[in-house]
């Protein structure tokens, strides 16, 4: 058993005291910080989420608008580019007599003029009703080539005019064909076929000067890329999304997740062609985007949260500490009052007992004395010697009884006298005398090494009693049966008394020794209040002294209580 305070036989501490243990305050602080933080940060977080959602919406609307604008502008331009060339060719085929077209030289001139006026034309050919290219002007040797099996040929025969989708064909560059049908005077049909470099369309798309997140490209109705795409690859690759349905020639913009990051997907069918213009605005994840766009908000949020948390932590810690200190003070005061009351009760009881016992004791004393006198002074008193012996025995017992009552009174007297002359030896013996029974039954030796001519000191007797009672009780609790407690007083100087109380008990471990004077520190588990030594420490300091402890685990403990000869008032 490690020694600890025990000002009076202590039952389990009151719930009041148990409440004051450290974990409770740690819990209180944690909960306070938690609740306060939640309450303080809740509106901030809600506003942030709100801001985030709003920003999201705004950004989507922006993206939608941007995509929509790209689509409508590009659609117009592309339609114009195609229609312009188709109209030019239509003009040529309808206005010129067939004969004017029926020579390579004529076609060459026309191609030259077209290239000059419009650009984008690669070559020009005149195809007969059998699909044979009769005349040709252009950089390739394609005269006599048979187009009979090509799609565009059938289409133009059927419809009169046709704009093809993109293919590589004999030329191995992406291009598309505009073909127009007319009839000769003899009723046979002929077809004017022009190849348009896809580069023309590419130029229009590149001229949009889009940001890195935006991809614009053209596909045909089968989902084959007509221009290169950032996302889906090169010309004639197939896109991995379903070709969107025709929607009355208007652009459609919708949100899509899919394989790419969050995206705004828009498309529009280009009139009079196989082309579908697609624009995709890719975006980082909404959160990343928000972080980058609203860095001011994020920054503000971070700083606010940190600041709020720091402040809450600081103030709560402070508050809980103050609360604990206040509780502590109250508990100590309560404990002290309890002790004082206890001592006062003992005092009153002792006084009553002393009075009630001393009177009959006095009568016994006098009657026995008288008996002894009779035996002594009467000449022929029978059994004189024996009577004298018996009476002496009675008188001795009376003396013993009166010593007890005197000690009781001496101990309990004057709790409210703050300053008096105290014989330290007497005081210490008195304190020990209250444990006489335990000391005797457990065969504990109490050795005094106190000089007989020690001067008295001037201090508070009641308080000193409490101090020594506490320390000596602890020592008695700590020593094994048959152990010993050495009490000595040395005077390092005339005005200073060192009361040294040494036991050969269990000792105190190093870790415990550091905390021994801290309030609520107890090694007795739920049976100690943890206040005794703390209060003892306070009392000694109040009396102008100090208390020190040395201990070796397993060997014993030495308490040294230093008391000035004359009490020096220190606060409290």
């Amino acid at each position: 058993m490690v020694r600890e305070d025990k000002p009076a036989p202590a039952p389990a501490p009151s719930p009041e005291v148990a409440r004051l243990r450290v974990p409770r305050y740690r819990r209180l602080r944690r909960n306070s910080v938690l609740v306060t933080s939640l309450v303080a940060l809740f509106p901030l977080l809600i506003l942030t989420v709100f801001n985030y959602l709003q920003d999201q919406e705004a950004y989507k609307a922006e993206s939608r608008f941007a995509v929509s604008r790209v689509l409508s502008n590009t659609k117009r331009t592309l339609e114009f580019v195609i229609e312009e060339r188709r109209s030019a060719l239509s003009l040529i085929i309808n206005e010129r007599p067939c004969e004017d077209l029926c020579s390579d030289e004529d076609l060459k001139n026309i191609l030259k003029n077209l290239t000059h006026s419009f650009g984008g034309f690669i070559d020009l050919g005149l195809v007969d009703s059998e699909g044979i290219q009769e005349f040709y002007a252009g950089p390739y040797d394609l005269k006599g080539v048979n187009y009979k099996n090509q799609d565009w040929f059938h289409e133009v025969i059927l419809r009169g005019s046709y704009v093809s989708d993109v293919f590589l064909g004999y030329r191995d560059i992406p291009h598309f064909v505009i073909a127009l049908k007319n009839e000769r005077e003899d009723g046979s049909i002929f077809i004017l076929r022009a190849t348009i470099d896809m580069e023309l369309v590419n130029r229009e798309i590149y001229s949009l000067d889009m940001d890195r997140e935006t991809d614009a490209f053209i596909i045909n109705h089968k989902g084959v890329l007509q221009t290169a795409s950032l996302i889906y690859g090169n010309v004639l690759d197939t896109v991995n999304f379903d070709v969107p349905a025709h929607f009355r020639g208007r652009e459609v913009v919708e949100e899509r997740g899919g394989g790419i990051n969050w995206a705004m997907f828009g498309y529009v069918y280009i009139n009079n062609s196989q082309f579908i213009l697609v624009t995709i605005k890719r975006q980082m994840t909404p959160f990343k985007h928000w972080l980058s766009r609203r860095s001011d908000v994020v920054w503000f949020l971070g700083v606010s949260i940190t600041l709020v948390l720091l402040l809450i932590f600081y103030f709560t810690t402070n508050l809980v500490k103050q609360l604990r200190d206040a509780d502590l003070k109250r508990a100590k005061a309560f404990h002290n009052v309890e002790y004082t009351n206890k001592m006062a009760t003992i005092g009153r009881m002792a006084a009553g007992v002393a009075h009630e016992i001393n009177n009959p004791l006095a009568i016994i004393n006098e009657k026995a004395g008288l008996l002894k006198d009779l035996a002594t002074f009467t000449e022929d008193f029978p059994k004189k010697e024996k009577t004298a012996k018996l009476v002496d025995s009675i008188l001795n017992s009376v003396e013993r009884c009166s010593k007890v009552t005197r000690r009781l009174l001496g101990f309990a007297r004057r709790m409210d006298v703050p300053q008096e002359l105290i014989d330290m030896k007497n005081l210490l013996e008195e304190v020990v005398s209250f444990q006489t029974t335990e000391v005797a039954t457990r065969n504990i030796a109490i050795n005094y090494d106190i000089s007989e001519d020690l001067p008295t000191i001037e201090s508070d007797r009641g308080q000193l009693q409490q101090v020594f009672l506490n320390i000596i009780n602890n020592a008695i609790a700590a020593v094994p049966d048959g152990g010993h407690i050495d009490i000595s007083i040395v005077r390092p100087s005339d005005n200073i008394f060192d009361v040294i109380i040494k036991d050969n008990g269990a000792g105190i471990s190093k870790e415990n020794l550091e905390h021994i004077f801290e309030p609520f520190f107890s090694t007795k588990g739920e049976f100690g209040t943890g206040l005794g030594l703390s209060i003892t420490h306070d009392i000694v300091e109040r009396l102008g002294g100090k208390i020190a402890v040395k201990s070796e685990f397993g060997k014993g403990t030495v308490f040294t209580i230093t008391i000035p000869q004359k009490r020096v008032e220190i606060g409290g």
Partner: protein
Amino acid sequence: MYKFRVLLIDDEEELVSALVERLSYRDIDSEFALTGPEGIDKMRQSVFDVVVLDLKLPGMDGTEVLSRIKKEHPDIPVLMITGHGSVANGQEEIPAQAFDFLSKPINLEDLIKKMQEAIDSG
């Protein structure tokens, strides 16, 4: 031939009667009174060298009796006895007019010594 005459004022008759007898063995003449007024009365009727007065008395308290005695016989020394183990118990002050005090149970030798001292001091 008695050494001196003493008046014992104490409500415990058993105590004082024994004391009177014991004192007589030691050549001290004594009388006792069981209450304050009785004691004051006895002092008016005869002469005593010293008075031994119990602090706690029924009716008139020892302190009161003391001041009355001192008023009438300022020269007669009074010894107080108390049932408490020590007189300095903070509950009852020993009046300055008393010569000294003794606590119960009384050691007879001490009492005689104190009485002698008191008489000698006068």
